[in-house]
């Protein structure tokens, strides 16, 4: 009986205390953009902490609690969340945030994705049938993402639409200044060759004309094998490779192995907001990526 009355109390508290719109983002970069647009007019939180592999966020029951109360769920999409999000949505039983509802926004639908496979088969590893889902690492795409988020916030929370529009405008202005700065800094890297661990920074490198000539994974999602690493080393002897980039959750041994054999500089790049302590928001994310590459 006591338990029931506590639950009742909690219900009342949770229903009355929080009239703000609740937004749930699957990744911290989305949360950061929502914050830029909505400031403190909405409650926003992220399901992933930024340090984890975005493909394998541990599905914890606490995430169901977040989804249960959400008014708007914003996902990256293109099957980046396929391995962990669907059962959480199913368990949350929240009709507002189901695909197709106004409370569900899939950012991948905004763009034409690169590397869309001609043939979808797991003989080629953990392929994404809709194409490479890490589009947000192209900083130019961030403005469009911010627009889409603003548009949706205006539908879910009409009263604050003007406020959101104003913030979008000033965000885009600030962002344009940063874009100019980053493309200026990245100029010197145009035409260079890099290896990466997984095809995650492709959109970024494509934007600045950096060529990805090899991945440490033989196939997407399949850990590096010795024979594949030897092939890469062989290739590196014939071509000048500037960096091996990897994300914080990638195992370091294969990266160090190649680096030791070839002298190529390994560079740890933040793949999301909060992946490193200094990457506090979406501005810091690209500042840090660019900073680490041109150092």
């Amino acid at each position, binding site marked *: 009986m006591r338990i029931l009355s506590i639950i009742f109390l909690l*219900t009342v508290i949770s229903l009355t205390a929080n009239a703000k719109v609740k937004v749930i983002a699957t990744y911290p970069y989305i949360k950061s953009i929502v914050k830029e647009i909505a400031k403190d007019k909405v409650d926003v939180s992220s399901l992933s902490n930024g340090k984890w592999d975005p493909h394998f966020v541990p*599905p914890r029951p606490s995430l169901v609690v977040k989804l*249960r109360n959400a008014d708007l769920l914003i996902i990256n999409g293109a099957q980046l969340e396929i391995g962990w999000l669907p059962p959480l949505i199913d368990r949350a*039983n929240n009709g507002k945030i189901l695909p197709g509802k106004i409370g569900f926004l899939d950012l991948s639908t905004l763009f034409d994705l690169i590397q869309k496979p001609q043939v979808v088969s797991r003989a080629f590893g953990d392929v994404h049938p809709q194409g490479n889902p890490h589009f947000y690492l192209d900083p130019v795409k961030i403005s469009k993402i911010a627009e889409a988020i603003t548009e949706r916030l205006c539908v879910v929370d009409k009263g604050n639409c003007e406020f959101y529009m104003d913030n979008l405008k000033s965000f885009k202005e600030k962002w344009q200044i940063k874009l100019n700065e980053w493309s200026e800094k990245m100029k010197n890297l145009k035409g260079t060759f890099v290896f990466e661990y997984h095809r995650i920074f492709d959109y970024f490198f494509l934007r600045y004309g950096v060529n990805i000539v090899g991945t440490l994974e033989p196939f997407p999602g399949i850990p590096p094998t010795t024979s594949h690493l030897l092939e890469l080393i062989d290739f590196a002897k014939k071509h000048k490779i500037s960096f091996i980039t990897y994300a914080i959750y990638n195992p370091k041994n294969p990266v160090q192995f190649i680096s030791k054999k070839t002298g190529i500089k390994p560079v740890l790049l933040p793949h999301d907001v909060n992946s490193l302590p200094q990457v506090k928001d979406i501005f810091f994310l690209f500042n840090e990526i660019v900073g680490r590459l041109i150092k």
Partner: protein
Amino acid sequence: MKKYIIAILLLFNFYVYSQDYISYTPSQFTNPFAQPQFVPNISLIADFSYVSRDIRDETYESLEIPAFLHQLIHKHGEHKHAPMNANRGFNLNYAELSLESAVDPYINLMGIFHITEGAFEIEELYFTTRSLPYNIQVKGGKFLSSIGRINSQHQHYWDFVDIPLIYKVLFGDEGLSEKGVQLTWIAPAPFYLLMGTELFQGENEYSFGYESIENNGKIIFYKAPVPNLYTAFVKTSYDIGNLTFLGGFSYLSGKTRFNHLEDQEEPHAFGGNTKIYGFDIFAKYFIDSYKYISFQGEYFYRNLDGFIYKNMNLSNLEKRQGGFYIQTIYRFSQRWRLGFRYDLLNKNEVNGEKITEDLDRYSLMIDFTPSEWTRIRFQYNYDRSKFIEDERKEINEFILEINFAIGAHGAHKF
């Protein structure tokens, strides 16, 4: 003669065909009624094993766990469920075919079919509601009950090849799977709090049953009113940093009918009530994206109270039985996991009299997953829970299991 007929037929065929070809161009061939986009998510899981055991297969089949199981491999009349890893050497354990899709904006439908060499069974076939108000979900059909922790998980998601002993003796090799309905609700608390209740037909032949039992035309136990089994459960979860804790209570109550009148040895029948209480805990510490350490344990207690019919006599029978398992898993790299499990049936009383001392089993497993869809697992069991002719038989068992998944298989819950 025959040759000519064939020749004429072939010519005619060619004539018709060439006529068609002249009349149409391939670009005009359409199939306006095809609906390939509506194919549900289909997946197939295959499970094979190689078993080595220091006991002959015939002996293994007839092993028993006193007051729990008469025969390790249960044979009730016609029905003989093909068990996993029953034979020494190679085993084709099962293929699991699953189909899943939204029916309409309101309902999802899931079908899971368990296929063995001799049988095609509906393991689960259920609907769930998609968006009822107040975060309520209704599930109906035939499905694995949500009691306990691993009961609702399929074999390929377990951390060990075989089901824990306490599950095997209370619910059988597949756990409690029944026809009925379920209602679950996620309470609006700041932490995870799920409450649920289920109403089932109550056919599980290890703890429940409702059919009347007759002997030579005389009714000994009347048919129990159906639906016969109801359950209730509460689950809650908290996070402390990278540590997730999940705990639950379960309660089951139903009528029981066991008909063993056809048995060769000591024919008997039982009719009465059964209550089962369960408690489960689970803790998982995420070291990084791939590595974790988890701890899991479940305890069940069963009270079976009623009458036993033996040698034309009815007498009181009350069983108080309980047991648990605890296990720990260490995923030490993206592809490798190591696990240890301890099983114990620590309470086994019939009419207040202790039947067996502690029945225990120790399991060690190591598995390798080259990709998300292949798993190769090695497991060693040292089993002290089985008896033959009232004598305890210690069994050593090595199992090499290989499991594959193809197609669109949904992600798993926590």
